[in-house]
Every structure is written in C-alpha cells, then in structure tokens.
C-alpha cells in the first residue's frame, strides 16, 4: 500500500501581489509556498503513514524549482518526490494538467490498495478541478471536501462536508480524496526530517518518460491540449474613496444613522 499526494507550488497571494502592466501576474517577484489545502492532504497521508508505515509519495507538475517544495515535504515525513517537469507540459490548463498527473501516477504504478490525496483547490486558481479530473482519468472513485477520513482495511469512511451539513461516504481503494482545511492541522518539518530530506529519492518524469502513456499525446497536453483559453485578463477597478466621518463616536454614529435613514435603508 502507498499513498500519492498531489501538490502544487503557488505564489503566496496572502502577501503583496504584483501584477504586470499587461494584467498578468508577476510571479517572479512573489514568494512561493506549498498550496495550503495540499498541506492538509500531505498531513492526511502522513497520519495514515504513522499508523500503517505505508510509503507516501508527493507528486507535482511544475518547473524544476519545485524540488525545494518537495524537499520540504520530505522533511515533514514524505518518503519520495515525483516531479513531472518538461517544456512540453507548459501552458496546460487544469484539464491537461490532470491528464498529465494521472499519466504520471499511472506510470509510477497505481495498485488496488493505494490512495491519492489532493488538496481541495489551489490558491492561485481556486479551480478545484485537478483532483476530480485525475480520478476520472484513472477511472477511480473520488470523494471531495473531506472533513474527516478514517481507514479500516481497504475501506475509507469520509465525512464529506456540505455547505449545510455533511454526508458520510464509504469508498474502497484505490480512490482519490480531496482535503479541506478543517481536515487536520498540518505538521511542521522537523529538525531530523530536514537532516534526512536531501537523501530521499526524487524522481523526475519528463516528456520522454511519459510520451508513450495512452493519456499523453501532443493534442492532450500543454497549450494545445487545453480546452480552455484565456480571452482577456484584467485587474478589477479601485472603487473611488468614500467619505470619512469625523467626530466623536456618538456624532459619527448619528450621522451614519441619518444617512441610512435618508436612503430609506432603515
């Protein structure tokens, strides 16, 4: 049994976000982090590893610089990194990305008792598509929005969160689970983990490694293989500054109340 975790290195949008004049993101000037929901997926996998001793493999598609993220995950306890990287994969939308990651996992070898954990969504795109689409391409069931996961044998019981409650869903391996923030509290790296992480295996799959896989051909990957295109991208307008009310708390409150009253809002 082994667990794959899909992870993505993303710009840290919680800090300063730099936008170039043409309306695209200036990624070079921004710090990168491991996508937050993916950290919950990693923790979910490591928890099962703590109990069963199974192997955990972090899978990412991206530039070679994503190695730094994979090493950090290894310092948390992940056993192995699988980085899918190649010029041919560039420009992929979520559909093409799912196809490539699915091919990578299949090429590595997905066995009947394996699990794939993904984060619910990435903060750079918020698409939440890649997990379900990998599951579809691998013909395995998915359970998204996992708020609790328990495992007994090959059966997983998942508390699948809804806006107004939850469902309890049972699913058997192999399956894909997408994880949300509420699922767990990701652990930190540890000192000894950092000491050992540079000696753990990092596997690189480039285009040549995957090109014979049935899911990979020039019409299914990269820009050409992406069903969606960006038509325009732009920054939202800054709303004009409003009015600052001055005076004591009582005076400003009185003025506000009269504004609301005039506008027939109370």
């Amino acid at each position, binding site marked *: 049994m082994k667990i794959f975790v899909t992870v993505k290195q993303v710009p840290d949008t919680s800090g300063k976000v730099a936008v170039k004049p043409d309306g695209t993101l200036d990624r070079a000037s921004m710090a990168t982090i491991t996508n937050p929901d993916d950290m919950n997926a990693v923790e979910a996998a490591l928890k099962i590893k703590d109990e069963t001793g199974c192997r955990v493999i972090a899978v990412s598609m991206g530039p070679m610089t994503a190695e730094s993220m994979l090493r*950090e995950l290894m310092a948390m306890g992940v056993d192995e990194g699988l980085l899918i990287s190649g010029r041919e994969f560039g420009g992929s939308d979520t559909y093409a990305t799912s196809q490539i990651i699915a091919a990578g996992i299949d090429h590595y070898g997905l066995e009947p008792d394996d699990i794939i954990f993904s984060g619910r969504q990435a903060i750079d795109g918020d698409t939440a598509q890649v997990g379900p689409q990998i599951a579809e391409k691998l013909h395995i069931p998915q359970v998204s929005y996992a708020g609790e996961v328990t495992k007994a044998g090959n059966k997983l019981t998942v508390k699948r969160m809804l806006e107004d409650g939850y469902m309890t869903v049972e699913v058997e391996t192999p399956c894909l689970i997408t994880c949300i923030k509420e699922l767990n509290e990701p652990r*930190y790296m540890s*000192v000894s983990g950092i000491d050992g992480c*540079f000696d753990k295996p990092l596997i690189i799959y480039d285009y040549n490694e995957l090109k014979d896989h049935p899911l990979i051909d020039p019409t299914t990957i990269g820009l050409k293989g992406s069903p969606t295109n960006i038509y325009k991208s732009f920054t939202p307008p800054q709303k004009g500054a409003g009015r600052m009310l001055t005076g004591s708390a009582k005076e400003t409150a009185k003025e506000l109340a009269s504004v609301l009253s005039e506008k027939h809002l109370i």
Partner: protein
Amino acid sequence: MILDAKHAMLQKLFREFAQTEFTKELQDRLDQTGEFDWDIHKKMAKYGFMGLRIPKEYGGSGMDYLAYALMIEELARVDAVLSIYANTSNSLGGGPLLLAGSEEQKKKYLPPVASGEKIVVFCLTEPGAGSDAGGTTTTAVQDGDDFILNGRKTFVSGAPMADWAIIFAKTDPTARGSRGISMFILDMKLPGVTLGAPEKKMGINGYPTCDIVMENVRVPGDCLVGQLNKGFSIAMRTLDGGRLGMAAQAVGIAQSCLDEAVKYAKERKQFGRPISDFQGVSFMLADMEAEIQAARQLVYHAAELKDHNMDATRACSAAKLIAAETANRCAYKAVQIHGGYGYIKEYKVERLYRDARICSIYEGTSQIQQVVIAADLLKNA
C-alpha cells in the same frame, strides 16, 4: 553568509514554528504569570528543538552550531523567553555532559533531555561568585563512594522545573581560585536539595529563575562529571557555546525591535504623513538595520568557526558583546520611535525593552566579554 539549502530550510522551520505557535496570548501569559509552559516546551521537543545539538546516538539530531544559532535567533525574534526554552538542553544544560560526560552518563541523561521529558540546568553563579566564577564556595566532600554537597547556587534559570542540575563545587579546599573545582550532575529530588523563591525579574518572564540550596546532600560517586578537580575548564568551554546562543538571542531581539519599529513608523502619522518619512526616524531605522546585519554576521561566523573546530573563544565573545549592545540600542530606538505608545504594555516594544536588558548581563556581562577578548588579543599579540 549565504545559507545552504539545509540551513535555509531549518531557518524556515524555526520561523514558521515561532510565528505560528508563539501566539500573542502565550507571550502575554508568560510575561504576566512568569510561569513555565510545559505544552510549548513539549511541542518544541517534538519537532527536535531540544535535542538539536545533541548527537543522534543520544536521541538528538546532531545539528551544527550554525543551526543552533539560527534556531535561537528565529525563536527570539518572536519571543525571547521561548528561545531560552530551546536553549538550555543544547547549551549550558546538555553541553557539559557532551564535553566531559562518560558514555554511561550521556546515555542516561541526554536522551530524556533531547525528548523534552526532563530538564537539566546549569549552576555556576553563587551569591558571592558571579563574574568571578573561581570564587565558588559550594563544597563537595568525598565520603566513601559518595560526595556530600553543601552550598547555594543563585540565579539558576529553570531551577523550579529542573530534574537535574549541573553543579560546580570545590572538591579541593586547598587549591586556589578556579582550581580544585569539580562538576556534578545533581538529582533535584535528593534529600537536602531545596529551592529559593522564584525571582521577580524585569524581563525574560516565563522561565523561572531561583536559588538552589544544598544541605548535606549525599550524591553518588557516578554523578561526578569529568575528572575530579578539573571542572572549571569545562565550565568555561561550556560558556563559550552558551555565549554564541545568547548572541543569537540578542540578534533575534534586535531584529524584533526593528520589525516593530518599521511597522509602527509606517502606520503612525504625524504632521499628515507617516513618521517614517522623517529622517529623524528613518535614520534610526537605518542604524538599527546596519548594526543588526553586523551582529548577525559575527554570530554566524563564530558558529562557523566552532563547526570547523577552530578556536572560537574570541569570536564568540565578540559576537556576544556586539549583539548584546546592539539589542539594547535597538530596544531603545524602537521604544523611542513608538513614543508614548512604546511605554505602555499594549505594544510589544515595551517587553522587548525589558527583555533586551538581560542580553548584556547573563552568560558573561559585556565587560566580561571585553576581558575575554582583551586577554585573548593580548595573549596572541
């Protein structure tokens, strides 16, 4: 110094841990109650902080001095007292055992210290022997296989929580000064060991400090660490490493002062603009930044020397001297930039000002560092 990938990752771990775990609530509670917090101590141990410098065969992770300096700096940058939590086992507490302990002693004492279950503290200072550690009056008299300890150690950081204490005691009353001193590891539960009341300190609250009093304490012979009558040089070598840690702590405190000052100077508006627009303020910030950079490089350099097993006595003292004075100057400026708000407890710089003050006092005052540097300088001149 440009950090390699491993040290950069360690720095990131310490920074993330401190920023997330050292909540404002925890910091305030430590400062207000002065009480030790076992939860955060155990959590730090879980991630390997307590055993950072302790070799792997004794349950630690065997990291180098640079990693140690980075840890203390990053933890102190968020909360000075919590950097002490992770310091003792790697420095004054664990250090003497590593330097002089027998294999049995290391195997017995270090693993529970590395895992955070047990705490070992360092006792050198006495009411009448501070900077002049040679003036030790605590005695250990051999009685069969045992030793009988009598005396009082003062300002022992961590004494109330300690399971064991490293005690320096005179074993040869005829020897003068620093000679004839031996080192013992004392089980704090032994009959005759009592604690003084916790000191009410200006800062570094949350890691209680008190006296340890020994009255006819019978200590088994296997608690002697290192050779009889040769304890003082171990104490001095331990302090070398300790100074490095305290220098790193001072850099962390200084950086925290700068962080707070920059944030405030950009927020606070006077005369219609942020006060950072005024050179009277921005030049203070520039001075702080320049001094912190200098102090930090001294610390990293001293760590590097130690990691290469080179003589680091002068470098450690220089780093401690400069970093401690920098922390004090930065604390002064940070409070100054905050004006009246810096004098009230709502703002962090008020505590930083109190915490910084100890930097130039403990583990050798700035004046003692000058003595060490001068002696080393003149010896080799």
